[in-house]
């Protein structure tokens, strides 16, 4: 029911929306909850477990009941709190957890079974037979219980992630927060003021109180305006601070588009805010009182009723009773009366209460029950030893207020019990750099909040080296509170007498007492046994009430019972927001070589090698299978010439007087003896003596080397080099830097390689000047480049490098010239085939568990000098002849496939782990040998050349026979390399 003349809504802007298929109307400035209440809709959902009808309880983010799904299709968003959802034109809201409809929910039969479904029911009941849990019970329970569901479709909404920095983060924009922000900002500090609502003011927006002679809401609006005009203040509305983390960092979720019919840009933004200091002004949350059937729609928190009246101009009923244990509840009654709403009764549990309200008053009395199927129709009041019933359509309840201590728990502190106001207050110093002001600190009057906000901010400003003026607290009222505890007002005894604590997880006082009875007496055990506080609202309304019941049941006091704590996030955050930008292309950076464009234009399928994109093969017209292309490329390289981009290999430039000594220490073989203009293969070990990486090292000058690493290990090697230089050999005068990105480098391989290069080089090369394993600087079509005569294919081959800006141009020229010579560009598949044919290793072989001994290179581990891993590599176990050693394989018999990952067994042995003799690491079809070939490791393998083994790939179902051979299949003498 709308009340004329009340509220901050814009009555000139009516808005139509849908709830549960029905069309309703509200106003700009309404929440979905306030608009529903204005339309006299209280029933908004069904409860989690018993499917009980539930209504709107609160007016804030703590709402346990009014969870709805907003929108339709892929974009729909479940579990949105109707109390936080701003109304917009065409909004579609759907109730959750009800079928076929809210009013007739089939699973409400659960409620009839309630005596059997108490706490611990699942643990006790669904134990047998064991296999039924996963297959029958759990799916059924999950289907019956639960709240909203995601659409299951790809979410088309966009989200963002961002960082912000400030001197002072003020969390909450109520009276304390507004004051704190103002005082901190006036002192010259950089301030971020964040509030979960769209309007600053917090409780002031719900009040008819006055500040400095202005209506509280108007004062808040003018303060908000003043703050928004200050250069050093950033006001972030619709922004919930969700978590407190190390180093003054806070998580925050900003809702940007959820209040709009047609949101543009990011729907939500997840912020990480780093602050020097934070002031928590998050206010307080009202708690209900437990009594039989206190969960009926129409039974609401008293503060929420006041909010709906003052902020939204809505009375949630026509005849309202108010029930409380504190003075604050009376204000709701007074304001309802002032607005012309009938207050049927004020029931105050305190016998000495002074109730200054013009309505029937029952002191020393309690509400002990309610009636009404889908909405409260009648309440039962126990007064003077007798029970009276009273017809009402709304009951406003206040069991007192709990400071919003949540963020102070995020770094493991537990709040402390404050007996004077019967609630937990934040522990001082709970979060380093965070101070608490206002209701969050247990100060429940407007004047006290304003004063506390200003004072705390002044303290913070002084801490940060500012000299704030002594803050003058704006004049306002100092309301009384006078709470006396009342947790369980009682009611019907027996199985049907249930008084609700946690509305969202359907936990009753009986469940808590049951837990205590079964010796789940610790508050943490009770929580897990009953699921109290484990729903999406984290028990914001109910935790304190539940542990008070537990304290009573176990005969301890509340401080001795203690409290559970809270974890981030304060309120639910979409995972999509935290992971914003990391979908699709945002998942990881893409690294493209300079030949990428030309390669893609040739239709080459690209594969990822780390972050790099490299071509698998270059298909020719008419080729239908990758093997066709690969075989052709191998044949053309072996018989003419091929070109391949090898820029992705790590390239590291070394300079300095001690460059040679440093490399001698890094590699197991020696580089100080390498002559200028020469290249040598190098193997580097880890500290534990196993192989880390391999590559070639070219000596460009006396004090100048260029190392190559494998593509995959480039980053790891760079880290290793930094470690060795900074920690192990800091005395060496050497500097090194990655030049991977500086040079575009192409392999030119095959018998025609020199002829090809000579068409593009500024000076002609010949075998005498540039023999195998030599290098030099050379002009490449007018550009200063480098040429290395090295080979990973086994052919007479070169690698030519030019500054990356010329990479695209050179690649195109090389390929064109290669094609003119009957050759081609080749990709990773052909590269891999050729290196296997030559027995060259990659990280498939040096996979982290193999040593130089295992791969047959132990002679490279020079014993004339020290190097990283040298000593450890001499351990006898690493030089044992029975170790798995690198060998080659050929299938015996025709048409047999080899597969990488297959294991080796002695011929005739059964293929079980105990009989394992080794494994296959790399396989290829060799077009040169016209057979499958493979590399791998075999126990004592070097002494078993010629043996026949059984090879079994259990995953692919391959079982065959192979012959063990040496790892070099082609040109073992290396004539082609030198040719």
């Amino acid at each position: 029911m709308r009340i004329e003349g009340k509220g901050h809504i814009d009555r000139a802007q009516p808005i139509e929306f849908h709830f549960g298929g029905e069309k309703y109307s509200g106003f700009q400035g309404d929440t979905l909850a306030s608009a529903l209440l204005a339309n006299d809709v209280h029933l908004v959902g069904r409860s989690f477990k018993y499917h009980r009808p539930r209504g709107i309880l609160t007016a804030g983010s703590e709402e346990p009941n009014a969870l709805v799904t907003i929108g339709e299709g892929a974009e729909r968003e479940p579990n949105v709190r109707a109390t936080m959802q701003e109304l917009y034109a065409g909004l579609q809201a759907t109730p959750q957890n009800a079928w076929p409809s809210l009013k007739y929910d089939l699973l409400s039969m659960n409620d009839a079974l309630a005596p059997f479904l108490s706490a611990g029911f699942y643990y006790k009941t669904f134990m047998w037979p064991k296999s039924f849990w996963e297959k029958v019970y759990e799916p059924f329970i999950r289907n019956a219980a639960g709240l909203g569901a995601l659409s299951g479709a790809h979410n088309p909404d966009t989200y963002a992630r961002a960082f912000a920095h400030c001197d002072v983060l003020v969390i909450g924009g109520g009276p304390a927060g507004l004051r704190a922000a103002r005082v901190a900002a006036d002192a010259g500090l950089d301030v971020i003021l964040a509030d979960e609502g769209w309007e600053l003011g917090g409780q002031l927006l719900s009040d008819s109180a006055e500040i400095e002679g202005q209506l509280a809401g108007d004062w808040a609006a003018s303060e908000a305006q003043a703050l928004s005009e200050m250069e050093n203040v950033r006001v972030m509305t619709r922004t919930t601070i969700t978590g407190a983390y190390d180093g003054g960092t806070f998580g925050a979720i900003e809702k940007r588009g959820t209040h709009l019919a047609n949101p543009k840009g990011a729907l939500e933004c997840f912020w990480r805010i780093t602050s020097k200091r934070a002031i928590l002004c998050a206010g307080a949350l009202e708690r209900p009182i437990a009594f039989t059937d206190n969960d009926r729609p129409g039974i609401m928190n008293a503060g929420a009723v006041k909010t709906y009246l003052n902020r939204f101009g809505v009375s949630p009923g026509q005849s309202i009773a108010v029930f409380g244990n504190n003075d604050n509840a009376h204000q709701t009654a007074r304001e309802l009366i002032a607005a012309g709403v009938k207050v049927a009764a004020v029931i105050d549990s305190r016998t000495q209460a002074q109730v200054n309200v013009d309505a029937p008053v029952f002191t020393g009395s309690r509400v002990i029950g309610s009636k009404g199927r889908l909405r409260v129709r009648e309440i039962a009041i126990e007064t003077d030893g007798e029970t009276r019933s009273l017809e009402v359509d709304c009951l406003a309840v206040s069991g007192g207020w709990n400071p919003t201590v949540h963020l102070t728990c995020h770094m493991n502190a537990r709040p402390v019990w404050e007996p004077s106001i019967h609630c937990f207050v934040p522990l001082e110093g709970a979060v380093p750099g965070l101070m608490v002001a206002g209701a969050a600190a247990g100060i429940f009057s407007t004047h006290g909040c304003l004063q506390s906000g200003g004072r705390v901010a002044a303290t913070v400003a002084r801490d940060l080296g500012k000299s704030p003026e002594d803050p003058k607290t704006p004049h306002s009222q100092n309301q009384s509170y006078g709470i006396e505890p009342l947790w369980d007002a009682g009611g019907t005894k027996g199985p049907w007498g249930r008084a609700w604590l946690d509305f969202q997880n359907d936990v009753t006082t009986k469940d808590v007492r049951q837990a205590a009875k079964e010796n789940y007496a610790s508050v943490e055990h009770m929580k897990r046994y009953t699921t109290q506080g484990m729903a999406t609202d984290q028990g914001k309304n109910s935790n304190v009430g539940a542990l008070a019941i537990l304290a009573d049941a176990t005969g301890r006091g509340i401080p001795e019972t203690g409290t559970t704590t809270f974890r981030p996030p304060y309120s639910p955050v979409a995972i999509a927001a935290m992971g914003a930008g990391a979908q699709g292309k945002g998942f990881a950076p893409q690294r493209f070589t300079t030949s990428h464009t030309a390669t893609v234009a040739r239709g080459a399928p690209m594969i990822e090698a780390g972050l790099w994109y490299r071509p698998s093969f270059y298909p020719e017209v008419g080729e239908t299978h990758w093997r066709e292309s690969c075989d052709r490329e191998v044949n053309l390289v072996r018989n003419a010439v091929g070109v391949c981009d090898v820029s992705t290999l790590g390239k590291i430039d070394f300079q300095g007087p001690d460059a040679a000594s440093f490399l001698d220490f890094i590699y197991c073989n020696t580089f100080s003896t390498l002559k200028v203009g020469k290249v040598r293969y190098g193997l580097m070990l880890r500290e534990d003596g196993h192989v880390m990486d391999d590559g070639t090292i070219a000596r460009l000058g006396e004090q100048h080397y260029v190392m190559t690493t494998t593509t995959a290990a480039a980053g790891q090697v760079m880290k290793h080099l930094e470690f060795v230089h900074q920690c192990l050999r800091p005395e060496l005068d050497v500097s090194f830097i990655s030049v991977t990105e500086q040079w575009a480098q192409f392999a030119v391989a095959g018998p025609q390689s020199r002829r090809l290069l000579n068409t593009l080089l500024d000076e002609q090369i010949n075998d005498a000047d540039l023999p195998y394993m030599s290098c030099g600087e050379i002009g490449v079509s007018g550009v200063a480049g480098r040429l290395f005569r090295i080979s990973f294919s086994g052919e007479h081959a070169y690698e030519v490098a030019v500054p990356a800006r010329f990479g695209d141009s050179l690649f195109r020229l090389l390929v064109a010239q290669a094609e003119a010579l009957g050759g081609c560009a080749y990709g990773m598949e052909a590269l891999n085939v050729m290196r296997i044919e030559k027995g060259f290793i990659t990280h498939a072989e040096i996979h982290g568990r193999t040593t130089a001994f295992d791969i047959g290179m132990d002679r490279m581990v020079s014993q004339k000098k020290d190097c990283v891993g040298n000593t450890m590599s001499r351990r006898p176990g690493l030089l044992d002849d029975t170790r798995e050693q690198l060998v080659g394989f050929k299938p015996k018999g025709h048409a047999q496939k080899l597969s990488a990952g297959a294991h080796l067994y002695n011929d005739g042995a059964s293929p079980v782990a105990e009989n394992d003799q080794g494994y296959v690491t790399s396989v290829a079809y060799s077009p040169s040998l016209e057979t499958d070939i493979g590399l791998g490791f075999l126990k004592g393998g070097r002494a078993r050349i010629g043996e026949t083994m059984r090879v079994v790939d259990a995953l692919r179902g391959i079982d065959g026979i192979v012959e063990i051979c040496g790892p070099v299949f082609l040109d073992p003498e290396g004539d082609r390399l030198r040719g």
Partner: protein
Amino acid sequence: MVKLIARSAALGLMPIEGDGVTIAEPHMAVLTSLAPLRGQEAALSAALESAHGMALPKPNRATGANGARALWFGRAHTLLVGPDPDASLTRFAALTDQSDAWARLMMAGPRVPEMLAYMTPLDLREASFKPGHTARTELSHMPASLTRTSAETWEVMVFRSMAQTLVHDLKQALDALP
């Protein structure tokens, strides 16, 4: 005689125009890494001063001006941006050409810090990150170098191979600006 054609790292991807942000690729400049030899920092700084008019920058600082600037570029590394390095520098430092190793973009406009807030955890408020400040940092998920060259102009560098990702992520950040 064939001549190789040079392509800049962000060729065809520029410029990017947004609300309060303009991004463009400058002409390819000479980038030289200077790594001082043992104990030669002061001598290198003096040589840099006399040859190019700027001292060796301290960590997270840039020296020089547009056209010739030196950026702190990590432990024991300075990046000289602009001039061909003077031969005198080689006495005190290892010099490495990095001109082609980095994609380098200029960003200008009042909203650049706001846009970058979607990409880096650095505090870029005027008082914390002043003109002449530089950082090796994370930009989205790329290793990057970021320099504030004036109140409203910035220079950003990422590995040349990541130019397309940088452009993609900058556009995404611009789209995220409210």
